[in-house]
């Protein structure tokens, strides 16, 4: 048990990885130590985990921890000064910004990836190919008057529409309700909710007249059990795919995922190195997590924002 952790650290490896991370962090050439504390959204967790794992291998003396308190729980800790970075699947709220300011926590918002929310139905559903945003709104609104598929379009079967979606604590729920219903949390309450997207996959795949929504990664892993719907955001029906999510045509259900960085923490070389590492490696690491990478220029922009934040607080 002890053997692995007490291996002598190959300093050269650490230095090599350092050169590759592109930033000017820790320029004195010594290997990094200290701790990087991250918490926040479980949606962003797979990305944070990938970055942390690679960074940890390159810098074995830095103690990286990634929590899963959720976007809101993460911000609470972040604005309390307890964490260095906060992952979020939605932008920080005004009330949270105020909390941060009150505690003297200055921060920079970085986008790290795109997530395409997929709207899915059972594979046995052969009548639905595409839904407009307005139809989605009527399905999910408390006053939308939809209880059967025929309420959505009259030519569809007169069968009860059974809804599956993420729990009300999740950033995904917040984003979907805000984008589709115009107000965060304004969803009808009579749907099957689960914090575990695999449960939603099971629910929809076992229920002929069901409809649900969740992150694209869960559709990608279960394509044979689910049917993906196209979404008409006003410019015709578009299915989520790598291309349509990355170029923004899968609107409005492609959402950015965020990492918030505390300025005062950037003064510590290990945090600076971690953030630079994240932005330089994201293009390579993000696709394997089931999310979509931003463009190279967008990551460069993030690096510039970090450099500016560091010089601004010097």
């Amino acid at each position, binding site marked *: 048990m002890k*053997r*692995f952790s007490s291996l002598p650290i190959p300093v050269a490896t650490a230095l090599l990885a350092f050169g590759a991370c592109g930033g000017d962090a820790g320029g004195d050439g010594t290997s990094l130590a200290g701790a990087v504390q991250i918490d926040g959204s479980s949606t962003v*967790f*797979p990305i944070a985990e990938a970055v942390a794992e690679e960074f940890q291998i390159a810098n074995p003396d830095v103690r*990286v*921890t990634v*929590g*899963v308190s959720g976007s809101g729980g993460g911000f609470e800790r972040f604005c309390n000064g307890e964490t260095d970075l906060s992952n979020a699947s939605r932008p920080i709220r005004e009330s949270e910004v105020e909390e941060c300011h009150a505690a003297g926590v200055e921060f920079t918002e970085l986008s790290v990836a795109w997530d395409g929310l997929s709207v899915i139905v059972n594979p046995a559903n052969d009548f639905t190919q595409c839904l407009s945003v307005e139809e989605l709104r009527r399905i999910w609104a408390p006053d939308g008057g939809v209880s059967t598929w025929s309420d959505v379009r009259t030519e569809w079967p007169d069968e009860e529409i059974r809804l599956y979606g993420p729990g009300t604590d999740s950033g995904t729920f917040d984003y979907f309700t805000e984008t589709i219903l115009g107000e965060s949390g304004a969803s009808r309450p009579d749907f099957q909710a689960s914090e575990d997207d695999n449960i939603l996959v099971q629910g929809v795949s076992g229920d002929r007249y069901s409809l649900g929504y969740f*992150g694209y*990664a869960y559709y990608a892993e279960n394509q044979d059990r689910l049917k993906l719907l196209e979404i008409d955001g006003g410019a015709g029906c578009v299915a989520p795919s790598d291309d349509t999510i990355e170029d923004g045509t899968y609107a409005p259900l492609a959402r950015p995922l965020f990492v918030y960085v505390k300025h005062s923490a950037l003064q510590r070389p290990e945090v600076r190195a971690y953030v630079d590492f994240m932005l330089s490696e994201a293009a390579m690491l993000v696709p394997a997590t089931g999310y979509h990478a931003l463009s190279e220029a967008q990551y460069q922009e993030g690096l510039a924002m970090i450099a500016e934040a560091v010089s601004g607080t010097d």
Partner: protein
Amino acid sequence: MSAGDWLTGSDAAFDRRRKLKGAVFAGACGAATLVGVVSLGVLLVDVIIDGIASLDWRFVTALPSRFPERAGIKVALAGSVWILVLTALISFPLSVAAAIYLEEYANRGWVSKTIQTNIANLAGVPSIVYGILGLALFVRGLGLGRSVLSGALTLSLLIMPVIIIAAQEAIRAVPPTIREAAYGLGATRWQVVSRQVLPMALPGILTGTILALSRAVGETAPLIMVGAVGFIAFTPEGPMSPFTVLPLQIYQWVSRPQDEFRAIAAAGIIVLLLLLLSMNAVAIVLRNRYSSKT
């Protein structure tokens, strides 16, 4: 007398019905027992089928990874063992002392009655409430941070009511004649408690403690509140170290979109079960040792 009258006067059919009732009741109780055993058996078989292929020494000693074939349980296992040992060290002496006080020393006034009622109520408080308490009291109030120690203290609060109640039952089960005989020979209260009551009650106390610790080892919610993390690639170096635990790691894996993670989650469950079984084994060994002494 009248009962004897109608028994002797009863016909054979009545007697058969009477016996049938007994048989039905015994059968119902047996079936109730089977519900537990069968569901445990099904669960075990299901988990072992899913997980046994992924379970090897590499899995036990490898660090966590986002690649299922590389991921291991080492950090979570070490975290669980740390939490378990610290929780046992904190909760056992406190709970046993409290039980001894309540049973052997306290006057049976309204104070001890109030304490007793509170302990019974605390045993039924949802674990997340302890998590919130731990966050406010240990993590932030006492400034212990998101450490193994905060987690162990929180879980200690969670299981102490259970241990106290079990210990009280065990102490109450020691025959009063033993105490009276000891007092009669001139023993002090300390001597009676330490040499007669405690050794006789210890097997029962240990059983209660192990059951409580088994609950602690499976807890996730309060530990997330006090800061168990999702990704951590080093084992705890001391009580102030950050940590994760087996149930949280397993949950992390189960909720992934990829099927491969569910296989290693099953392997993680087997490791958790083995940890529980070895805890029980230790308890049985301890219990037998103390039982044979008295």
